[in-house]
């Protein structure tokens, strides 16, 4: 067998081959990571759908916002509660994987249920830190006092916090199963729900088939409830009970899913294998 030519020769100042080598490093990751591939097409699609529905609704209801000052800002702030509550659960979990600390935690006496409780509690703290300054600053900037929603705001906040945690727990379970290649699910999951959460428009602005989906999720009930308070000054107990009931059911399912994924991780040996 002859030896290959030596590569010990002067190298060019700029090499497309080396450029390709670096590209290859990322392409190798990309081609075997379906969440990363999905993410590329995902954001433009979600933005298009969300703002398409917003545009369609406002074309027929141009005076809608004027009827209740602050409806859009309140919606944005409450949406951020849901978004932050989700990240508040999923990001700390990913941080444990990034720091290769998960196995250490699971060989301590820590129980799965304790981990979930800690993550949800952290989510509450992170969410409060995130949205409180914006809620106060809405007054000097836009003359909108979101606390005008009164006691119902507590109900909306709590329901969105729990729903965000449901999404976060589900995402954490998926990341445990599929590894850090799936970490973008933290953002993908929550934004998938944005168009059907009826944040900026009522549920009936959606096509009929999507209305069914929207009303099967707690988020849409919260935002419908918010509009009820802002437009009519009425707190809808119906939407509240739907949101709370759905949250209880979904939180139970998400917890069971997480526990199942933990069991799978113990069978497949995923708790020791962390990293990219």
């Amino acid at each position: 067998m002859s030896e290959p030519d030596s590569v010990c020769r002067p190298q060019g100042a700029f090499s497309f081959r080396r450029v390709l080598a670096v590209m290859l490093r990322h392409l190798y990751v990309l081609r075997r990571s379906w969440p990363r591939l999905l993410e590329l097409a995902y954001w433009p699609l979600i933005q298009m759908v969300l703002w398409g529905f917003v545009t369609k609704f406002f074309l027929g209801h141009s005076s809608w916002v004027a009827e209740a000052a602050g409806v859009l800002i309140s919606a944005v702030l409450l949406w951020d509660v849901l978004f932050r509550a989700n990240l508040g659960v999923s990001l700390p979990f990913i941080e444990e994987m990034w720091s290769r600390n998960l196995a250490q935690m699971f060989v301590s006496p820590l129980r799965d249920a304790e981990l979930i409780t800690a993550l949800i509690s952290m989510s509450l703290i992170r969410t409060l830190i995130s949205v409180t300054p914006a809620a106060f600053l809405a007054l000097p900037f836009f003359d909108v006092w979101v606390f005008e929603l009164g006691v119902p705001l507590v109900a909306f906040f709590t329901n969105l916090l729990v729903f965000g945690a449901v999404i976060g727990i589900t995402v954490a379970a998926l990341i445990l199963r599929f590894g850090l290649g799936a970490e973008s699910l933290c953002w993908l999951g929550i934004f998938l729900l944005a168009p059907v959460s009826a944040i900026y428009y009522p549920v009936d602005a959606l096509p009929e088939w999507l209305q069914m989906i929207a009303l099967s999720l707690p988020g849409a009930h919260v935002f419908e409830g918010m509009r009820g308070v802002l437009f009519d000054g009425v707190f809808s107990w119906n939407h509240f009970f739907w949101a709370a009931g759905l949250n209880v059911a979904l939180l139970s399912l998400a917890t069971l899913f997480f526990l199942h994924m933990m069991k799978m991780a113990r069978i497949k040996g995923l708790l020791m294998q962390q990293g990219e």
Partner: protein
Amino acid sequence: MNLPMSEPVIEVTDLYKSFDGVHAVNGVSFRVDAGQTVALLGGNGAGKTTTISMLLGLLSPSAGEVRVLGARMPAERHKVLGCMNFSSPYVDLPKRLKVWENLTVYAHLYGVRDVKGRINELSDDLELADFIKRPFGDLSAGQKTRVALAKSLLNAPKLMLMDEPTASLDPDTGDWVRGYLERYRARTGASILLASHNMGEVERLADHVLMMRGGKIVDQGAPRDLITRHGRETLEQVFLDIARAGDT
């Protein structure tokens, strides 16, 4: 958890673990008694880490039984996880947390009563004072190993599982760690299960060696007995005999 004197600290019976049809651990049985240091010795892929993972309850066996301090693993792990601890270069601690913060978190996870007192005690014992206020990620490999050791001693464990505790350490630090483990065992009577491919370490620390290859225990005994039985002068030569027998 107190075991009767005759009860083994670890009892592994006919243990199997396979991944996609490949046997990582293939019918392993052994026991570790109170106060004993047992070493799992074998090359890469011999099944040492997989065995330790099952002892820790991180991995479910495909077949067979693992009992640690009398509890079946992983089903009854919560009965005993507070009495054991673990150290490995393949896991880490949060890098942005300072050393004392990391130790505080784990002291609470293990239910240590006097958190501050215990950390101070370990800091003195393991000479952490110079860097205890620095982020874990800023430490050298030797310093990180000492912190990992401190973490694994927080609950004064009856059983320590150590996966290559001196891998990637310079000889001086490696020697220091081995010396510390010897003193700790002599002082507390704890049992240690050590996975290593460092022959000097195994010869120095272990009362009993389990030689692993291809997921099986192919030989076992006291280091000196193994050397005599194989007609060799060092454990490394025994290891090479066994490893190369698998290649032919």
